[in-house]
């Protein structure tokens, strides 16, 4: 398991297990997520990496029959503790999915919606948030002249960057990405990857991906999941050049999974 829990990070999981009914989808995983890094979660389908990712901002709450054991620490608070304000928590953690899911609203409203709900009423301030979020997501130049148009009129790649901008609009400290580029064409994928590299300067990013080259290109740390367990976690260069575990090696070489 390498140095997984050696340094205590302000964002990390500790012995995290997730059950669907009696089925243990994630088995006692401890992982740190350092500031200004990208951590890639890789592994074959059904290995629990998406479930793990979703649990980090308690998106599994809504699935009936799912229970969680162990801890997720953010700034010294266990977010699974009873009494946690889930709404506040989710403001700190943005999330973007495989399939772009912009709201059925204008481009402007997609971004302004979250901040408005969380108390920003000033029109100028909202305008600024919309512009800066779209700039951070490298979308501003493409949409600045049609902010009032429906977000659904954008292309898939633009929609995905809009979703990233939307996640950034409430100023999260952490960004969770669930295969954010797997539904996009190569050009859009390139843009999203570029974006991830830029964004890690400001926050920490956890990304689930099936694309090995992508994991190697953009991540600093890589965790290999198999059947709900963490097989290996280390610096990305180490995992991709000289992994300790035979299984990791085979998966990365594409011989299995």
């Amino acid at each position, binding site marked *: 398991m390498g140095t997984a829990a050696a340094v205590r990070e302000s964002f990390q999981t500790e012995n995290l297990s997730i059950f669907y009914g009696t089925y243990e989808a994630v088995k006692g995983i401890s992982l740190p997520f350092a500031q200004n890094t990208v951590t890639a979660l890789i592994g074959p389908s059904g290995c629990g990496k998406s479930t793990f990712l979703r649990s980090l*901002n308690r*998106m599994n709450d*809504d699935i*009936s029959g799912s229970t969680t054991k162990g801890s997720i620490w953010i700034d010294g608070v266990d977010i699974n503790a009873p009494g946690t304000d889930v*709404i*506040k*928590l*989710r*403001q700190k*953690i*943005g*999330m973007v*999915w495989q*399939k772009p*899911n*912009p*709201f*059925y*609203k*204008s481009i402007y*409203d997609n971004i302004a*919606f*979250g901040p408005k*709900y*969380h108390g920003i009423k000033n029109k100028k301030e909202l305008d600024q948030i919309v512009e800066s979020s779209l700039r951070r997501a490298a979308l501003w130049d493409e949409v600045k002249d049609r902010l*009032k*148009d*429906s*977000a*659904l*009129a954008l292309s898939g790649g633009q929609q995905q960057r809009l*979703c990233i901008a*939307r*996640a950034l*609009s*409430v100023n999260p400290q952490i960004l969770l990405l669930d295969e954010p580029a797997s539904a996009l064409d190569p050009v859009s994928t390139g843009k999203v990857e570029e974006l991830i590299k830029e964004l890690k300067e400001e926050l920490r990013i956890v990304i689930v991906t099936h694309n090995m080259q992508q994991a190697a290109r953009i991540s600093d740390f890589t965790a290999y999941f198999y059947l709900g367990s963490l097989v290996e976690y280390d610096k990305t260069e180490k995992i991709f050049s000289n992994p300790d575990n035979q299984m990791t090696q085979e998966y990365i070489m594409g011989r299995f999974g």
Partner: protein
Amino acid sequence: MKPRTADKIATTVIVALALLIVAILIGLLGYILVRGLGHISWDFLTSAPQKIRAGGGVGPQLFNSLFLLVLTLLITVPLGLGAGIFMAEYARPGRLTNFIRLIVEVLSSFPSIIVGLFGLLLIVNYFDLGFSLVSGALALTVFNLPLMVRITEQAFRAVPKQQKEAGFALGLSKWKIVTSVLLPVALPTIITGTILSAGRVFGEAAALMFTAGMSSPRLDFSNWNPLSPSSPLNPFRPAETLAVHIWKVNSEGLAPDAAEIAAGASAVLVITVLIFNLAARFFGRYIYRKLTASKRMN
């Protein structure tokens, strides 16, 4: 048989059936309009009916139908939306939820004459609301509410799950997601449902005879006090609707021009439903565009 031949036959049969339905519809509409349009005049639309003399109109009945529609929608839309949202977003799936769903469906297929008699016993007599618009609206709610609940539930369920997830991840409350993210997307379907249930209000006669009554008091259209017995806006007065009037004139009308009045009233009813449909769709599209910034309704 060759697959291609089978395909051809199937297509022909389906197209023929569709054409048949269209033909029946056009024939029916045409018949009603051709027979009735000639009788419609401003006077016919605004004056009160005559008992034995010729030349009566359907003014109060037309107004009653529209007013009853408003009252019924005032009851059904909030209740139906609330219950539908509950079923789609809050109720835990299980036996109880399924049981509620079953009851809702059975309720909507009740024969209207039974609902009318039930309304007479319970609403008109027991609760002493008398033959009144309110009694009629409550009886109609029995049919309309299940429809609204079902359609609302289905409309909410049809919204992609990812929309909800996106809302949660932004730190929105469930209520905020329901009202600001899901409702705008579900709206077109809900509006269609409202139009369908409104059609029932215009067309229903059996359930209204025993609840809203078969007579209208002499209405004074300059009296806007809702508590005055002669005010058209009084919801506690008896109110014969257009559909009930058509039935009554046809079966027991004494006026010499009873047949023409029935024909004219039928045409008025059909046209009213048509106008309401178009207006509701237009309004719905306008709201949908406002809420979603989209150019088209999808």
